[in-house]
């Protein structure tokens, strides 16, 4: 049965060689996506960074020389501050409203029987997967001065609704657009919760509210944080919603950046703004992962 063999007993060197061979296969599989993302993501990122230090000529061309920090200095301009503050407040308000509405909503779905739960969930998924632009546009129709909502109030003897092109309209549109992003993580957190823990709390003399505060809420916090990040980040950089529902005097960071490239033709300043917004979002995300790790 024994056949001569050229294979040797394992030594640390041979084992290391085998490990290297395995890791080479991993690198090979990673290679296409790595190359793609390096070319079409990492390099563009570097270009934006480089442009943010460049000079804008009087004709609006970007000159890749005379590197300076002017664009970053302009970030402290009161106009920019006003826009950033408006965007920030809007993002916070959107996140807060989404959370306040979604928590009881997700709680309700998560505490139904399995069949009802699935149906209710599908009814959330449909708007979630529907085209974002179309969903935002629907509010333009609904809120129009001669739109159905306005006609309804007038039929009831009231004033026509004049919400369109205001911050309120943008807020409504953002809440509408991002609500599913809050509902789904909250639902996921509440759905996998062990409800026996709540029963245990009740057994240990907690009333309903205390049990919620001391057990349900802390255990659902990862969902709260995930949902808040998923709503906060895109709303802070929102462009489509304010462009459709907002007015001329309600500029937000998203359209401000866009206008630097399409209208004002100030690429260095637009680049600096992009880098700044991105840094804030990265920081927020890192905070999220930190607090998430503490909670899990």
């Amino acid at each position: 049965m024994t056949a001569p063999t050229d294979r040797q007993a394992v030594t640390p060197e041979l084992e290391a060689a085998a490990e290297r061979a395995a890791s080479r296969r991993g690198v090979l599989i990673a290679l296409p996506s790595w190359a793609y993302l390096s070319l079409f993501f990492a390099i563009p990122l570097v270009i934006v960074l480089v442009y943010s230090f460049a000079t804008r000529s009087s004709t609006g061309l970007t000159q890749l020389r005379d590197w300076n920090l002017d664009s970053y200095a302009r970030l402290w301009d009161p106009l920019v501050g006003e826009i950033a503050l408006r965007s920030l407040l809007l993002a916070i308000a959107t996140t807060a409203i989404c959370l306040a509405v979604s928590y009881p909503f997700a709680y309700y779905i998560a505490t139904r029987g399995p069949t009802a739960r699935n149906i209710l969930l599908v009814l959330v998924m449909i708007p979630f997967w529907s085209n974002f632009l179309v969903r935002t546009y629907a509010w333009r129709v609904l809120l129009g001065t001669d739109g159905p909502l306005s006609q309804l109030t007038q039929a009831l003897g009231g004033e026509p609704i004049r919400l369109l092109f205001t911050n309120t309209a943008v807020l409504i549109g953002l809440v509408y657009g991002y609500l599913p992003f809050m509902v789904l993580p909250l639902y996921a957190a509440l759905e996998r919760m062990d409800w026996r823990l709540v029963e245990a709390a009740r057994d240990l003399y907690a009333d309903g509210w205390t049990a919620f505060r001391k057990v349900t809420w802390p255990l659902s916090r990862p969902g709260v944080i995930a949902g808040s990040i998923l709503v906060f980040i895109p709303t802070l950089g929102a462009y489509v919603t304010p462009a459709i529902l907002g007015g001329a005097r309600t500029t937000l960071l998203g359209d401000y950046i866009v206008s630097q490239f399409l209208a004002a033709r100030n690429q260095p300043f637009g680049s600096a703004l992009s880098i700044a917004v991105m840094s804030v979002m990265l920081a927020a995300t890192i905070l999220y992962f930190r607090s998430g790790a503490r909670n899990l």
Partner: protein
Amino acid sequence: MSISTGVRPKSPTERLLAANSWLVYAFFYAPILVLIVFSFNDNNNVGIWTEPSLRWYRAMVENDDVLRAIRTSLIVAAVSTVISTVLGTMAALALERFRFRGQRVYDGLVYLPIIIPDVTMAVMLLLFFAQSFRILDGLIGWSPNFGIGTISLSHIAFNISFVAVVVRARLGQLDPRLEEAAADLYANQWQTFRRVTLPLILPGVLGGALLALTLSLDDVVVTSFVAGPGSTTLPVYVFGLVRRGVTPLINAVSTAMLVASMILVGISLVFQRGTASSPRVAEAHPPE
């Protein structure tokens, strides 16, 4: 405290929760329904209901710009979905099943596009294409145009990451022992992937593909930066129309887009039901 029996009397909290939920559903669906209803309105004015008609749908299919935009959207969505699904799935495999040097950096590179706001991504890609076209022109005298090519390349760039995240979640749930079992039963690495790993992560791969498809069909911001003259996608075209004002034609196009989304959701639901089997084997032991 009441003892829970078959039918529990509804507590006030319960009633409030239910009321809140129905309001949320109303909020979700009222605008969509209004939009759909008004797309069948015969009147030129969006707000005034006259009588039901398919007039605006006829106008839609007779509008060359709309048709061209639909065609562009479909090509871009198909190309970017296929490529990003393949690359994203490979990225997920590399991250979840292998250890190699530089993996953390690679991990960051895969995740970053998700965190970056649309607008920044759009700016990055615009400057990148403009700059590299200038360089290409200088080097070989070839200056490509913005259009379907740049749109597709951009969509792939943001879709790879989303596919990778979805597939990776599924891979994370897959018991690695199943792959070991395949190897133990003489399957080489390719056969193991082909016959065990891939079929079991397929719901994740298809979920990722569906997400990529949706994101590609949804995107306005990035596309409007990297689109060229005469080659926009449907959302960008509609976005342009909307900025100029509300028309019944947009209602019809929007309704068509909604229906397309819902068909996609329907397909995904049917599919999920079909492959709902859990990748973990030993969990369920129904009686003999």
